[in-house]
């Protein structure tokens, strides 16, 4: 209902008081983000964003908004130099393939690449085409361009119609693919791109609360958002997003807070990383333990981690622990 949607931001100029959970989450995220940043310090991440033709003003605006949101999130995460966006007349087939060749020359094997294709696609039963000015970019073009890159870790996100047609063509052991549709037959305009762009700015998408949105988290959030929209509107879903590949959780797409790792002493960072590793190891052994033993060991590790984080955190004004009322345990 358009009328009520437009009202949303205006009726509460002061904003709704943030729930205590979210208020304190911001501070926490600031610090926790440092964790995830550490291990990848030596590998470079490159991001290539390709904005296709909209065809109609409505879609052109949508694609532009989505591409800019993705670019802003990527730059905040990886810095300006790591991100290249091709749009309008720069997004021709020739320019795109040239950009891939430049990346091939710049990248190393340990680097990782994230490619976004934001726009309409089509599939005639044999060939997928991504719509750009001039000749379209084909599935064969993309396959060749990606194969020519030394980066061993690749993530390709295609948000438009018929994008599922790329799954068999681009599938590879070292490559993660996110597509808006499950095949080339789902050819209607999609909602997945908007939902994915929203995910990159949403604390709700950050399900592990590490301050970053991984490709896995963004996909889960976007797919659910799209499903909910179709369900709410009582429409038969004409798109079914697919994630192909095992390592989507390893690709960070956005950071919700600026990195604060530089301010944390290295010893504490290492201890925290070690505790997180022990928690992961315990979770892996969960089914070999009794529930009581697992709970006890998990609680012990979580308490150690919480106490360490308390040492790391700057002193903050005391706040009630729950809801609006502070209750001391009896």
């Amino acid at each position: 209902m358009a009328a009520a949607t437009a009202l949303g931001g205006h009726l509460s100029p002061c904003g709704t008081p943030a729930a205590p959970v979210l208020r304190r989450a911001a501070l926490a995220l600031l610090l926790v983000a440092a964790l995830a940043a550490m291990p990848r310090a030596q590998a470079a991440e490159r991001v290539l964003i390709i904005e296709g033709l909209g065809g109609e003003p409505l879609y052109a605006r949508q694609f532009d908004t989505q591409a800019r949101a993705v670019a802003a999130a990527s730059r905040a995460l990886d810095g300006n130099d790591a991100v290249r966006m091709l749009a309008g007349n720069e997004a021709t087939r020739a320019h795109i393939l040239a950009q891939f060749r430049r990346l091939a020359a710049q990248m190393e094997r340990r680097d990782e690449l994230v490619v976004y294709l934001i726009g309409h696609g089509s599939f005639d039963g044999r060939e997928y085409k991504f719509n750009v000015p001039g000749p379209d970019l084909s599935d064969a073009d993309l396959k060749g361009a990606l194969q020519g890159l030394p980066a061993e870790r690749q993530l390709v996100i295609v948000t438009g119609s018929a994008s599922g047609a790329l799954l068999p063509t681009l599938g590879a052991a070292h490559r993660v693919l996110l597509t808006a549709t499950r095949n080339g037959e789902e050819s209607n305009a999609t909602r997945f791109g908007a939902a994915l762009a929203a995910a990159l700015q949403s604390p709700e998408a950050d399900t592990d609360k590490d301050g970053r949105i991984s490709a896995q988290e963004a996909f889960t959030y976007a797919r659910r958002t799209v499903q909910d929209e179709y369900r709410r509107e009582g429409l038969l879903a004409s798109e079914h997003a697919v994630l192909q590949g095992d390592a989507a959780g390893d690709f960070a797409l956005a950071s919700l807070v600026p990195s604060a790792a530089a301010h944390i002493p290295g010893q504490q960072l290492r201890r925290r990383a070690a505790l997180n590793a022990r928690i992961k190891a315990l979770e892996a052994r969960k089914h070999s333990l009794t529930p009581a033993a697992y709970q006890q060991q998990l609680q012990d590790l979580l308490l150690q981690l919480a106490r360490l984080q308390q040492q790391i955190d700057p002193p903050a004004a005391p706040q009630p622990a729950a809801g609006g009322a502070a209750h001391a345990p009896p």
Partner: protein
Amino acid sequence: MRRPDALVAALALLPLGLLLAPACRARDIPYGEVGDPAVRRCDALNWSPQHAAAADCYRALAQREAGGGDGVRLAEAAEGTWALGDLVHANALFRAAAAARPRDATLQARWGELYVDSHQPQQALDLFHEALARDAHDAYARLDAASVLDDQFAVQAQAQLRAAMADPAAPAGARLRGLLLSAGAALEEGDADSARSLLDQAQAIATSARLPQLEVDALRAALAQLEGEDDASWIERALQEDPAFGEAYALPAHIEDIRWRARDAIALYRQAIAIEPTLWSARVQLGDCLLRQGELAEGRAMLESAYRGDPYDPVTVNLLRLSDSLQHFAVRSYDRASDGGPALVLHISNAEVQVLAPYVRRLAQRALSTYAQRYRFQPRTAVQIEVYPHQDDLAVRTAGLPGLEGELGVTFGYVVAIDSPASRPIGDFDWGDTLWHEMAHVFTLESTDFHVPRWLTEGLSVFEEWRTGPGAGVQIPAYVLAAFAQRRELPVARLNAGFVHPQYPEQVVVSYMQAGLICDYIDRAFGFDRLRALLQAFARTSDVSAAMQMALGLSATQFDARFAADLQQQYGRVLAQMDRWLALRTEAERAATQHDWSAAQAAATQALALQAQDVGEDSPYLPLAQAYVAQNAPARALATLSDYAQRGGHDPQALRTLATGLYAAGRSAEAIRVLDGINDIAPFDEALHGQLGDWLLQAGRAAEALAEYRVALALNPPDRATAHLRLARAQYALHDWPAARREVIASLEVAPNFRPAQQLLLQLAAAPKSTY
């Protein structure tokens, strides 16, 4: 081989009816439609005590197929084969006969009737139309078409019936069949006077033309029941003619069923199948009635027996499938309430039970308490509520067939079934209003032992939605007001017809609204006591005018005049300017879409001046509030939305915006009330429950917050760390430290570095060991 003594013992266990029953398939009486003397001879035996001879006769007919391509012999063989129950082969024979006699309209019509018998109405209708193309005066074919159309609630049914009856050349048998069809319809509408007159005419024709009177007698039995008289003599008359005529019971049972008197219908259907065990349609109806009464095991067994005899009936198959799916529903039982209210049993699909059960229970118990007080009646047994996640399941529950898109809920005495809010797009319906509506039926039906006429029970349910329901406020769709402007409302004595046999597509909804407005008028003009007295009057009489006289001191005609005057007083301005009002609504919507805010404000304001209660679909309140926001007048926007909500507006997004605005303005209690109200409309929204829980927790209402947070978690949110942390905070506020600890660890298990959860864990760890 079975020993003779065992066979005798087995036979002794069979109901007497099975021994008397015809060996043939239950067959509609042709009333002279088939002129072939050989077929007529068999039919005469079939509707007499000589069933064995009838079977032999039909077998002899069936063997005429061997005679080859003679169309007459093939048609006779088709009739015989059909009567013996082989519908597939009968179809092939009719096809061959029709090829041999392409101009024979009666043959086409009979072939169509075979399709009706095999539950393929559309193909049947095609054949009836083909028969009419061959002979436009074939009254039997026209009546066949009317009957099929009537079953489909098609408005053309009446036109076909009138055309058949108006034909002076129509044979006596056709006129008898038309009168029986009309009498059945009158009985379905509860119109005893019309039914009596029609049956008198039918009997006169049957007598003079020497046609079977079995169905006349059966319908007279139904009429006697309608009027509260003894039906036994009429049934006895029919059974004297044919002792195995199950329809003698099944026809009155059908009328009782239509009048929602399922318990009486069940008793009659049982007698029908006792004397005619192969009357498969009665078994289906009995099975359906039993399911409606919550007798799931016996209902299923009955349907299975019907399926074995007639596997073509989609109603049987659908009901059996529904019965299968009910086995995957969760059952939640709640004991009798402390105020003496009845126990409550909820059947909700496993996937939805955790979300819906708390709200269904809350609303149902409020309805039970409210209605017990208003109607001075306590339900005598537990009320069962079924919530169907798919629209078609509810349609099958209601009518045995999918596709009843307008059906939102149904009440079978103490069993209520509604659509789940997840079954339709948000905004299409309010499950809370629907449940409130259906729960009113429980009281109006049961307190009158199902004697309340359809229009009054529906009217009271609509009235209660408006007066006491979760979204209280009179809501009349624009197209209904447009119908009132064209004076399309019915006299109260004929209002039942608007529900049962609509004459135009919107008439059912128009009738609902008219009935609701009638109750609203009686309440305002005479008081609720008189409204309740009217309801109770129908326990003593089925005559609308007599009931009106008892309760209000007015005849039905006098009442119609007073109601019409009130309608004018309440809605006269908008009814007089209908076109202008509709144009203003459209203009408000258009202008808002184009961001022409001053035009939107002007049009919406003028539209609301004509009809301030316009809070339904496309309500002008929404573009008006939007215009105020755009014009930087948030306080006026808030006031507009508050007005909209107080009048019963229920757009979830608008209500959410209102709640947010109220909260921002420091009116947290109102904000919580508005947000909580969305649970009665669209509860499958995890953000709603999280937000409401946060507000409740901040207001110190931790137990209610906990309930909301539990529902949020049941919706399986992607952000499970926050969902568990919220639960931990609520448990902490309730001083339930062990539960808080479990939840905070669950949160940190998902997100070990989630700082707010870490803080709560540390606080809990600081507690003395004995409590932690």
